[in-house]
């Protein structure tokens, strides 16, 4: 009787597994279906519209190919403009994101954990947070000069806020009993921070980081509007705009969209790894 139960259970598990897998496949298929349908609609509407401002996606893709991806195999099919513009942009974005996220986490923890730091910094941070960076371009320029430094400062200044605020919120909402447990066992500050506060802040921090990822793409484009810029996706995009080369501008838009999508997927993979415990613990209810 026990054996039969076991067999039945195994079968049940197998069934559940395959159901889950099928569900995953269906979701993925559904996602692609939605995408394909939307692109078809886009193509049709733009063709009917016939406006130079809204070129059909097929045209955009062709333009992207000729502009960036028709290079020799030796450069992974990247053309010279792609190497000249896309790679520096990605570098700026990555460096700006890393710096901004780090600053956001550090400041967020400081402000969220220390009443003293909060008192000293909150006013100034809130002030800075509301400041539109385009108004400060001149100041950025005289402080950092043309080029990379100003661009990175610009990106960091913009993306630090979501990370900072969400981290501070997370740091402040740590389960009180966890902190009491730390206190009781006299964990050092560093241990508390690393073993308890950081892990329980992570879920909210990731919400901020995810916002920051695509924000860093956006402000990367803005940073490439800074005086003296000579390369970058944003540079190409705004140049195309000023030349009324709308297909090229759309190529930039689509490239940004694709990059945003890819970065987000990458981000989710990282998040799933880092926050595995969180998601699992949330699965109490099936």
């Amino acid at each position, binding site marked *: *009787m*026990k054996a039969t*139960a*076991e067999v*039945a*259970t195994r079968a*049940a*598990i*197998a069934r*559940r*597994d395959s159901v889950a897998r099928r569900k995953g496949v269906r979701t993925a298929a559904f996602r692609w279906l939605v995408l394909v349908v939307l692109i078809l609609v886009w193509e049709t509407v733009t063709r009917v519209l016939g406006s130079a401002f809204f070129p059909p996606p097929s045209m955009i893709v062709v333009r992207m190919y000729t502009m960036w991806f028709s290079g020799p195999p030796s450069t992974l099919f990247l053309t010279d403009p792609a190497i000249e513009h896309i790679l520096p942009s990605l570098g700026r974005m990555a460096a700006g994101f890393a710096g901004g996220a780090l600053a956001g986490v550090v400041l967020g923890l400081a402000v969220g954990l220390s009443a003293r730091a909060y008192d000293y910094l909150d006013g100034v941070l809130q002030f800075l947070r509301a400041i539109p960076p385009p108004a400060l371009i001149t100041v950025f320029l005289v402080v950092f000069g043309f080029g990379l430094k100003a661009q990175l400062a610009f990106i960091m200044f913009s993306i630090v806020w979501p990370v900072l605020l969400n981290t501070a919120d997370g740091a402040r909402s740590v389960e009180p009993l966890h902190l009491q447990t730390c206190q009781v066992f006299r964990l050092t500050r560093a241990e508390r921070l690393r073993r308890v506060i950081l892990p329980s802040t992570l879920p909210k921090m990731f919400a901020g980081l995810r916002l920051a990822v695509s924000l860093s793409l956006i402000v990367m484009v803005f940073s490439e509007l800074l005086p003296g810029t000579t390369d970058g996706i944003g540079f190409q995009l705004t140049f195309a705009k000023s030349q009324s080369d709308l297909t090229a501008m759309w190529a930039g838009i689509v490239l940004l969209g694709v990059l945003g999508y890819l970065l987000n997927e990458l981000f989710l993979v990282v998040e799933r790894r880092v926050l595995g415990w969180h998601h699992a613990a949330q699965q109490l*209810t*099936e």
Partner: protein
Amino acid sequence: MLEITNLSHVYGGGSPNAHHAIEGLNLSVAAGELLCIVGPSGCGKSTLLRSIAGLITPTGGQIKVEGDLVRQTPDNLAVVFQDYSRSLFPWMSVADNVALPLRRKNMDKKARREAAHEALESVGLAGAERKYPFQLSGGMQQRVAIARALAYRPSLMLMDEPFGSVDAQTREDLEDLVLKVRGHHRMTIVLITHDIDESVYVGDRVVVLSKAPAHVVGDLKVDLPGPRDQITTREHPDFVHLRAEVGRLVRGHAAAA
């Protein structure tokens, strides 16, 4: 009322550290019965309760409540969770916590408030209505959870170690309260407890579960003269005998049922 056949549940099915919590469990509870479940820690009692409440889908077997297969939470059910403090809503006052489920009952606001008040009073928390859960002691929170279930007047009530955090005196009062309410409103109650005396005192029947994977190893009818009373019942020779019997079953010294 409740019919469980060949129930089994595996956590983390498929993975190498899958855990068989329940296996081949059969159980039936008549309407109006108060069934106590005892069993070793971690054997699968809470899992069983959650399955009955439709909160998890067992990996095998089936559960019927009033003849209907449980797929979702059955109607007219209330649960007192083992982890009572997390089951209260921190953003609501105690009274609101108790009154919330009553929204399902077509009661107007005033009636809800009164019912909540009454239930809180019956668990000895008159006057705590306007406090928030975090302002209460552990035992008081547990009693709020009980009051919430009682105020709902379910036809099937599932209680997972409902009296674990209260003092002896209050515990006895709550036991009697459950007995009283059950009598008045013809509830069917499944109550998990670790206190063997308690299981015999409040139960019409005591079911003993084995170590994981859980299955029934003992099923004792408690035939004590009613109405039960904390002093006389506990002195009754049948009580003493039953309690010893349950104790033996829990310790695994008895023959399988």
